C-alpha cells in the first residue's frame, strides 16, 4: 500500500474568529476520484487553496505528492493542476494563446509546446475553436479550456473546484465523463469539490461530506449510507389496492418476524423497517393473506438523502449555540 497522495492532518484555518476549516483529516490515494461535497461556504475552496499552498493554514499540515504544501508550494504546484471555481482567461487572447502562456509558465520546452497544446485541446474537444478569442467562449467551453489548462502540465493530481457550476446538464455529463476517462486512462488522482450531489455521485469513488469546516463523513456510497442509515436498516414500502381497515389486523400475521423492527401504515401503504432485506418474504406473506399489491418499493439511499441528513444535522449543530 502506497502512501496517500494527498494527506491532510489536523488542518485548521481561521479567518478572524471564524473557523473556515476545522481540524480536517483526510487522505486521498493515488488514482482515486474523490468528491468533496458540501454546501456553499463550507470551507471547500479554503481547503483546496491550502493544499496548493496559496493560503497558509492556521494549524495543521497539508501534504501533497509528498511535499508540504505550505513550505514547498512550488513543487506542489508543479505536480498539481488546479482549476478554480470561476475560471477566467485573458479575453484578448485566443484559446491556443492562453494555453501556450500557461504552458510556458510551467516551463514546458518551446519546441514541443505547440504540439502538446494542440493535443491537449484535442483531448478536451476544443480543436475547432482554438483560434477563437476566449471572450466569445461559453461557460462550458471555458470549463473545457480550464481543464486543458490543467492537463497541459501533465499533472499527477487534478483539483477541480466546482467544475460543474453553471454548465447545462448535457455539458455536465460530458465533462464528468471526460474527467473519469482521463483519470482511468492516465491514473490521475482527481479531487473535485461540488455542492451538486448527482454530479459527484456519477464519477466519484469516494466522497467526503463537508459542513461548516468539518468533515462529517467519508467513504464510498455504500459505506456512507451504511454509516447513516445502518440504524434505520432496510425500508420496504408496499402499496395495496385497498386501504387497510384495521392496522391491528396485521398484527397477528406479522408476529414472530424478528427481522421487522417497525411497521407504519398510512392508508393503503405499509412501510416496513427491517434489519435484513426481506422484501420477497414480505410480499409473499401479504399475498397469502389476501392483500392485492399494486406496488413494491425498496428504498435505496442516494447521495441526496445522505447529504440531506448530514446537512440537516450540520445546521442543527451550528445553530444551537446561537
Amino acid at each position, binding site marked *: 500500500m502506497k502512501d496517500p497522495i494527498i494527506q491532510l492532518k489536523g488542518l485548521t484555518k481561521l479567518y478572524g474568529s471564524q473557523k473556515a476549516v476545522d481540524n480536517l483529516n483526510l487522505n486521498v490515494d493515488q488514482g482515486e476520484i474523490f468528491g468533496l461535497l458540501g454546501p456553499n461556504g463550507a470551507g471547500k475552496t479554503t481547503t483546496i487553496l491550502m493544499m496548493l499552498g*496559496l493560503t497558509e493554514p492556521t494549524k495543521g499540515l497539508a501534504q501533497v505528492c509528498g511535499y508540504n504544501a505550505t513550505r514547498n508550494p512550488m513543487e506542489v504546484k508543479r505536480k498539481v493542476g488546479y482549476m478554480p471555481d470561476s475560471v*477566467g482567461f485573458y479575453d484578448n487572447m485566443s484559446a491556443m494563446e492562453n494555453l501556450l502562456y500557461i504552458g510556458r509558465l510551467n516551463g514546458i520546452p518551446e519546441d514541443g509546446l505547440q504540439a502538446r497544446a494542440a493535443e491537449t485541446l484535442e483531448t478536451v474537444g476544443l480543436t475547432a475553436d482554438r483560434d477563437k478569442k476566449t471572450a466569445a467562449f461559453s461557460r462550458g467551453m471555458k470549463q473545457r479550456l480550464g481543464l486543458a489548462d490543467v492537463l497541459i502540465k501533465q499533472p499527477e493530481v487534478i483539483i477541480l473546484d466546482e467544475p460543474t457550476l453553471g454548465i447545462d446538464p448535457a455539458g455536465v455529463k460530458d465533462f464528468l465523463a471526460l474527467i473519469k476517462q482521463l483519470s482511468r486512462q492516465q491514473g490521475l488522482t482527481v479531487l473535485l469539490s461540488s455542492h451538486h450531489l448527482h454530479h459527484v455521485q456519477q464519477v466519484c469513488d469516494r466522497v467526503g461530506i463537508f459542513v461548516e469546516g468539518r468533515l462529517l463523513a467519508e467513504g464510498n456510497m455504500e459505506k456512507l449510507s451504511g454509516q447513516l442509515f445502518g440504524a434505520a436498516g432496510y425500508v420496504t414500502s408496499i402499496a395495496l389496492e385497498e386501504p387497510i381497515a384495521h392496522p391491528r389486523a396485521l398484527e397477528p400475521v406479522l408476529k414472530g418476524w424478528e427481522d421487522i423492527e417497525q411497521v407504519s401504515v398510512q392508508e393503503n401503504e405499509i412501510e416496513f423497517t427491517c434489519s435484513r432485506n426481506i422484501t420477497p418474504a414480505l410480499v409473499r406473506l401479504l399475498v397469502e393473506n389476501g392483500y392485492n399489491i399494486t406496488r413494491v418499493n425498496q428504498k435505496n439511499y442516494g447521495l441526496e438523502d445522505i447529504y440531506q441528513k448530514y446537512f440537516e444535522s450540520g445546521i442543527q449543530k451550528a445553530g444551537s449555540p446561537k
Partner: protein
Amino acid sequence: MVRKEITDHIRSWRFAILIGLIILTFVASLYVSLSNIKAAIGNVNDPDHTFLYLKLLTTTDNSIPPFHIFLSFLAPLLGISMGFDAINAEQNSGTQTRLMAQPVYRDNILLAKFISALVVVSSLFATLALLMIGGGLLLTGVRMEPQELLRILGFLVVTIAYVAFWLSLSITLSIVFRQAATSALTAIGIWLFFTIFYQLVVNLVIRSFLPDPAMLTQEEVIRYNNIILNILRIAPNHLYTDAVATLLMPSVRSLGPLTMEQMAGAVPSPLPFKESLMLVWPQVSGLLASMTGCFALAYYLFMRREVRS
C-alpha cells in the same frame, strides 16, 4: 511572463491613445522650437546658445510649454494608465488564481507587471529621443556635443524614473482597491493634487505662518524661501521639473535662491555635465526612493493578500 505583459500593453487601446498624445506633444513642441531655434542659437547673451539639441527640447515661443514641462504632466498619466488595473483586473476576471496555481513565485507576477510597463515606456522615450537627435542632425547638420548626448540620456533616465514612480504608485493602488475604476480615480486624484493643488495649499498655509518679508533680513528671507522650496519638493513633479530643467539647461546652477555674494564671482557659463548631475542628484535619488518605497509597499500588500476574496 514579461513578454505577455508587454504584448498586452502594446495591444491595448489606452496605450495607443497615450502614445499618440505624447508623440503629438513631442512633434508640436519640436516644431515650435525648430521655428525658434535660429533666434535661440543666435542669442549670444544666453550661455546655453551653443547646445543646439538641448535647445530643441527646451525652446519655445510661449505658445505652448516646452516638451519637458509637458512631460511632467503627461508622464504620470502614462504611468497611471499602465498600472491602475494591473492586479485587480486579473482578480476580477478570475485569471489571478489560475496564474497563481502555476509554478511561478508570487512576486514574479508583480515584477512582470512592473518591468513590462517600464520596458515599454523606456523604449518609447528612447525612440523619441533618438528620433529627435536624428531629425535634428538631418535638418541642421550641426555636430552634436558628447555632453549634449549625455544630458539627453540623463533626461531620459530621469523621465523613466518619474514614470516608474507613478507606475508603482498605481500598481499599489490596484492592489488596495478591488475596482479598477476606483484605483484609476484615486491615482488621478493624487496626480491632480500634486500638480495643481499642492502648490496652492502650500502657499496658503505658508502665507498664514510667514512673517512680513519687509521685517526680515535677507538671510532670513532666503531661509524661509528654502523651507518653502523643500516643502514643495515633496511633490514628485516638482522634483522632476527641477531635475530635468537642470539637465537640459546647462546654465542652471542652483535650484534654490542664491545670494548676491554667491552670484558675484560666477561667470555666466554653462556648467559641465557632471556638475549638473551633482546638482540634481538629490532630486533623482528622491524620485527613485519614492518609487522604491511605493513598490515595496505594493510588494508587501501583494504577498500578504489572501488569494480569495
